């Protein structure tokens, strides 16, 4: 368990903290925030690259404040791969083991195990300059695991990769977490957070403004920034049915089926429905939309442009409509309405 107690760092024009949070063993905690919010700085303080001005960090009840970076039992994976350019992939992975004076057979066995796990067997003799971005990040992950860390600090390791490689690395991270690795993962991508995280901590201008489950961030944002971050508030855990061959597939949320396109494997995931794509009708109307539900208006909140309408259809859907539509339709809380949206307005995110 990692306990962060009132950690603070002050600069001339920026200060971080005091930050307090606990990361339970085996959890995947996501640290969200815009660039400049201090999330990477927090990670660097935990890794011992930057000294805090105040506060303390405990790993399994023992303070690591007095430990230099090379003594801390935490692995750091950087945004861009930080491989040693003069060493082969083998020597990069072996580096921490050589430092710890393991015997050559032990090092070889461990490197080969990790190479197999991260599909690097054919790259062991290559120099980092020859690797693709995805391969390089896989080497970074393999190398970080050789030290058997208590916590992995991930500083947006997916952001420098393109989409297919991102999915591949995401799979490795999920697998690691499922095997019990504790992770603190910095990202500015909310979708990334809801896919991964047991908890998400949101930083704004160096302050921790909410530390909650992703569902609670969506349902009960405690700050307008959190509401903006979640933006599109129609996120639901869902089970995708059918197969990749089907044109239209069903995703079940509680006892409601959504029709959507998806190339994902059937199974658990999250559906995201863009609030701007949801259309309200007073009467049931025939249309080309694949999804149509009857519901009751739960609330109407004026926004800067237009209004946000919460409709209870068994689950709560959020729709954004213009002020003109609100006036023309004369909508009020408690009214029955029909909501519709196209199959293409729904995205399914694999977990």
């Amino acid at each position, binding site marked *: 368990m990692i306990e962060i107690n009132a950690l603070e760092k002050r600069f001339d024009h920026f200060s971080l903290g005091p930050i307090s949070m606990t990361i339970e063993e085996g959890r995947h905690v996501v640290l969200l925030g815009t660039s400049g919010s201090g999330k990477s700085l927090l990670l660097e303080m935990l890794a011992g*690259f930057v000294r805090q001005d105040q506060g303390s960090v405990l790993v399994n009840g023992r303070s690591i404040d007095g430990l230099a*970076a*090379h003594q801390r039992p935490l692995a*750091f994976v*950087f945004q861009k791969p930080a491989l*040693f350019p003069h060493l082969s992939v083998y020597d990069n992975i072996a*580096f921490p083991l050589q430092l*710890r004076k393991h015997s050559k057979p032990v090092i070889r066995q461990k490197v080969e195990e990790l190479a197999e796990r991260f599909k690097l067997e054919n790259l062991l003799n290559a120099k980092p*300059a020859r690797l693709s971005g995805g391969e390089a990040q896989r080497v970074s992950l393999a190398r*970080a695991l050789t030290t058997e860390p208590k916590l992995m600090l991930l500083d947006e390791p997916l952001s420098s990769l393109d989409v297919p490689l991102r999915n591949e690395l995401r799979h490795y991270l999920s697998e690691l977490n499922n095997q019990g690795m504790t992770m603190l993962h910095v990202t500015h991508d909310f979708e990334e957070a809801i896919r991964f995280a047991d908890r998400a901590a949101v930083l704004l201008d160096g302050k921790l403004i909410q530390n909650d489950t992703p569902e609670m961030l969506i349902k009960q944002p405690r700050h307008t920034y959190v509401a903006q971050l979640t933006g599109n508030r129609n996120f639901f855990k869902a089970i995708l049915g059918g197969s990749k061959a089907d044109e239209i597939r069903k995703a079940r949320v509680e006892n409601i089926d959504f029709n959507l396109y998806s190339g994902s494997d059937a199974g658990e995931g999250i559906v995201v429905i863009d609030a701007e794509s949801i259309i309200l009708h007073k009467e049931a109307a025939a249309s080309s939309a694949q999804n149509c539900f009857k519901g009751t208006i739960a609330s109407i909140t004026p926004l800067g442009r237009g209004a946000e309408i919460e409709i209870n259809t068994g689950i709560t859907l959020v729709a954004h409509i213009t002020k003109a539509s609100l006036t023309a339709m004369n909508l009020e809380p408690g009214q029955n309405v029909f909501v519709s949206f196209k199959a293409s307005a729904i995205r399914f995110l694999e977990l």
Partner: protein
Amino acid sequence: MKPYSNRNTFHLIFVFAGSLFLLFVFAPMAGLMFSTPASKLFQTIQDVQVSNSIGLTLGMSAIATVFSSIFVVPFAWYMVRLGGRFKHIISGLIDLPMMIPHAAAGIALLGIVNRESALGRIATEVGIDFVDRPLGIAVAMAFVSVPYLYNAAYQSFSAIPRRIELAAANLGATPVTVFRKISLPIAKRGLLNGFVMMFARGISEFGAVIIIAYHPFTTPVLIFDRFNAFGLKEAQAVSALFVIISLAVFVLIRYLSKPLQDDRN
């Protein structure tokens, strides 16, 4: 077709300017080489005073370079990591010996290593003498040429992304291990350039060396001495020989330091 003709004129100006520049650099060198027949070169190489001076010059410059690198390379690495405005002031001060007239640099150095100075007295007590000694020559060479090594080392270490060294620390490397196993090998090309630059600057040094040690003769001092005593022809022969040997040494260093295969780093 005006733009084309303009471009052509532009091109011609560059070719003309470039040719003048190349002529300026190579004409004196070529003149030096052609002015000395092979027989004269052969005769000069057999002159013990000349061969001793060349050996002394190359040897002292090599010693100055190797000895300085022990201090300068780790210091440059440390300076790259040092924050604050002091590092720019210190870097400026390190460049000073390069900026001032080298005779003035020699005088400044003689001021602290002469036998009457505090340092000179302590050195004399332990049997070390700088004035008119090979050691003094090495010190004078090091004084004026060490900024080249420092600057090359500083630039090479600056080019290493911070995250690479942090990653090494995170994986368990102490600062000394990070320096030895990560930074030093990554920066080796730049460092080697620094060594070559410092060595080259050292062997060509005249102003500071002649103030500290007129004798024993380094080759630049010997060339000056021959010119004064025997005139241009004698000085040209020693100069040509020294240029050929220096070139051979540089080519050899470059060849030995060439990597066996391109590791694209």
